[in-house]
């Protein structure tokens, strides 16, 4: 769906082959009954295909295939959406990106290396929508050369048991800084959560007196607000790419169905109403792919308007993606709302991505704030 280099095509094709062979729908249904869906050996193979290094500079042990690692990773995320595949792809890459950009080699080098080679996974504990009434989040208290974290993270996607959590905590001076928390550190309590996605697992995390070396901090003190916004740009683009992948799969299934299914002696696809619906869905799919591609290019290149494009991608794909898939369900008739049919796999994936890490409305509001900021700059200039 994207305009790509030959190397990006190859990355996407190998990912697609691997996911198709490893996670056919029957396998996803089996995983649905399991408490944990993470498979360390399979994740490691994915890392060997290049899933984990793309947002990290070569100097820090990573590497992209085209020079724009986000554009590369979009191809992988698209295939994750098409296959509703398990594996903490976005979280691991986001935390790796944070460590690569703001971590230090001595303090975070080992953790980053584990993420890059697939030996560990990570989650970014961030929920931008939680308003003023939400629980306080995480606080950090200094105690000698240690920092003690207390608080909760409402939900994170789980992966390897020896994973990491990147979370912003409020320091004594009221500013926020990022910390890298090993999930097996004493005082880290996780409680499994239910959810829509059949193959991704979520947990609530409580940090009770988690004492870490002060060196666990990622980035300069007080930088978490800015850094969270940057990570949110990356996350938004990747989620939008997964949503577009889920849309693509559901659309392709539906197009086939409209040819195979007959009513009143003709294929469904011969009714103009159905044809026009499919034309609308195809156009919305193309529009979603186009804005994701553009956003990946702008964010990956660090362009001045990157944040607007990332927000537009998530606002659009988040709003339209699940609706497009619902329309695919509608065009399937009764079979479309059964567990036995595969459509819901993609509806689940798209819906979870659309609503987490900022709803479409959150990104729409973010777009307005960016317009206002631009106008203010013009006025003062």
């Amino acid at each position, binding site marked *: 769906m994207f*305009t790509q280099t030959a190397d990006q095509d190859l990355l996407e094709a190998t990912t697609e082959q691997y996911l198709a062979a490893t996670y056919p729908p029957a396998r996803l249904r089996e995983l649905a009954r399991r408490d944990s869906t993470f498979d360390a050996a399979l994740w490691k193979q994915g890392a060997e295909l290049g899933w984990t290094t793309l947002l990290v500079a070569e100097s820090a042990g990573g590497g992209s295939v085209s020079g724009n690692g986000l554009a590369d990773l979009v191809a992988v995320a698209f295939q994750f959406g098409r296959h509703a595949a398990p594996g903490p792809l976005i979280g691991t890459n986001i935390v790796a990106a944070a460590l690569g950009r703001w971590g230090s080699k001595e303090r975070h080098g080992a953790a980053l290396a584990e993420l890059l080679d697939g030996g560990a996974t990570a989650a970014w504990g961030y929920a931008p929508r939680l308003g003023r009434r939400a629980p306080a989040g995480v606080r950090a208290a200094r105690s000698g050369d240690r920092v003690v974290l207390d608080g909760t993270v409402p939900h994170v996607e789980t992966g390897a048991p020896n994973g990491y959590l990147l979370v912003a905590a409020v320091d004594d001076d009221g500013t926020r800084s990022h910390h890298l928390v090993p999930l097996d550190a004493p005082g880290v309590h996780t409680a499994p959560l239910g959810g829509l996605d059949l193959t991704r697992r979520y947990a609530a995390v409580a940090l009770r007196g988690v004492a870490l070396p002060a060196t666990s901090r990622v980035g300069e003190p007080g930088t978490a607000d800015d850094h969270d916004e940057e990570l949110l740009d990356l996350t938004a683009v990747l989620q939008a790419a997964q949503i577009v992948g889920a849309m693509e799969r559901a659309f392709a299934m539906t*197009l086939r169905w*409209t*040819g195979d299914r007959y009513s009143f002696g*003709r*294929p469904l*696809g*011969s009714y*103009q109403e*159905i*044809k*026009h619906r*499919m*034309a*609308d869905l*195809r*156009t919305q799919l*193309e*529009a979603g*792919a*186009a*804005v994701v*591609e*553009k*956003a990946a290019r702008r964010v990956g290149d660090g362009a001045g308007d990157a944040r*607007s*494009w990332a*927000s*537009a991608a998530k*606002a*659009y794909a988040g*709003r339209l993606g699940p609706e497009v898939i619902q329309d695919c369900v509608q065009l399937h008739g009764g079979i479309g709302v059964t567990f036995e049919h595969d459509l819901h796999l993609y509806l689940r994936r798209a819906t979870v991505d659309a609503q987490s890490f900022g709803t479409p*409305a959150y*990104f*729409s*509001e*973010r*777009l*307005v704030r960016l*317009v*206002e900021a*631009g*106008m203010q700059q013009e006025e003062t200039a």
Partner: protein
Amino acid sequence: MNADLEDVDAFAARARAWLAENMPLADQGRETFFLYAATHPTDDEVLARAATCRQLQRRLFDGGFAGICVPREYGGQGLTPAHQAAFNREIKGYDYPAEIQASTFIPCMAVLLEFGTEEQKHRHIPGMLRGEEIWVQLLSEPGGGSDAAGAVTTATRHGDQWLLNGSKIWTTSGWWGDWALCLARTNWDVEKHRGLTVFSLPMSAPGLAIRQVELVNGSKDFCQEFLTDVAVPDADRIGDVDAGWSVMTRWLHHERTISGGSPYITGGGNRPSDGPYEITVLVTAARRLGLIDDSHTRGLLGEARADALVQRALVESVTRKMATGALPHHAAAMLRLFGGTTNARRAAIATEVYGEAGVVWAPDEETNAQVGLGYLIRQASCIGGGTTEMARNVIAERLLDMPRERRADTDAFRDVPRGPRASSTP
């Protein structure tokens, strides 16, 4: 690709400098485009703007920026779509001859480039690029516009000339255009697509009577033409006799690229600014109305902003994919559909943001009037240039390969049922 071609970045830099020196800035909050103008421009005002368009086009020509993708032998620059795309980015914010891009350059010039004889191309294209020849499309008829192949305007051969009789309608700029492409029936006794021929003719031709049609927003730029024995030399025929449909398919294709994707139009099919729909204009209006902190209003503004960005990305991406062959040229119908529905939605958004202020206004509140009248005329964006339903048909049948509609018009055209508005069989 030709190695002597100017590098796109260097070209863009040269264009940037030239534009700053030579082109006037666009008036951001103001919609000058006739069809959407809220000021009910008088005929004199329209003619004045047309004269400005001619001058601006001449300036582009003299500066070496007209017909960027047109071969040099016809007065163009012989460059690539990438150069045109770069120029379209640079020209944003400047006034330019927006009103003559369609129909002069697409579809008319594009059709001449593909189907014109050498003589026809040399005769007309340089004049088009200099702003001397403004072209219009005589295509739709009172009996139907979507079904272009159902045209009943008839051309009859008399020696080396043709006599045209019938009526055309909805001709944008018909009353001040110089030349036209005209689709006419040359054979009533074959299947409808096989009896059509395309002609070019001057709008001042004897026997061509023009009536302006008033639109709901007060614009009178639409026209109906009545053709009575209009004589057209055979040398002005475009393409072969009865082969008009092969011209038409490309004509319609070029027309669909109006929402983006054409290498022949300056400004990428966009007007100099989005007028009242420009996001900063909308935010300013919401502030003035005291609504900027209202979360529902902010939701509408965010939706408008997201849609505008998505539309831009879609035009760029589909244009690129069609150029590389990743998508067939029928994919342009997606741009037409998305452009139409998105423009309709933004008119609704603006109307909701303005509320009362967009339906009742003071004499000096021109932007408010544009919003209100823009809403009244908004479906034009889903009708003109081929309707969104026709675009959906193209996407479903050509891009998705879904079954074609059953046809009731495969007999000799003479015997095909027609509604009462179509003129009768000769």
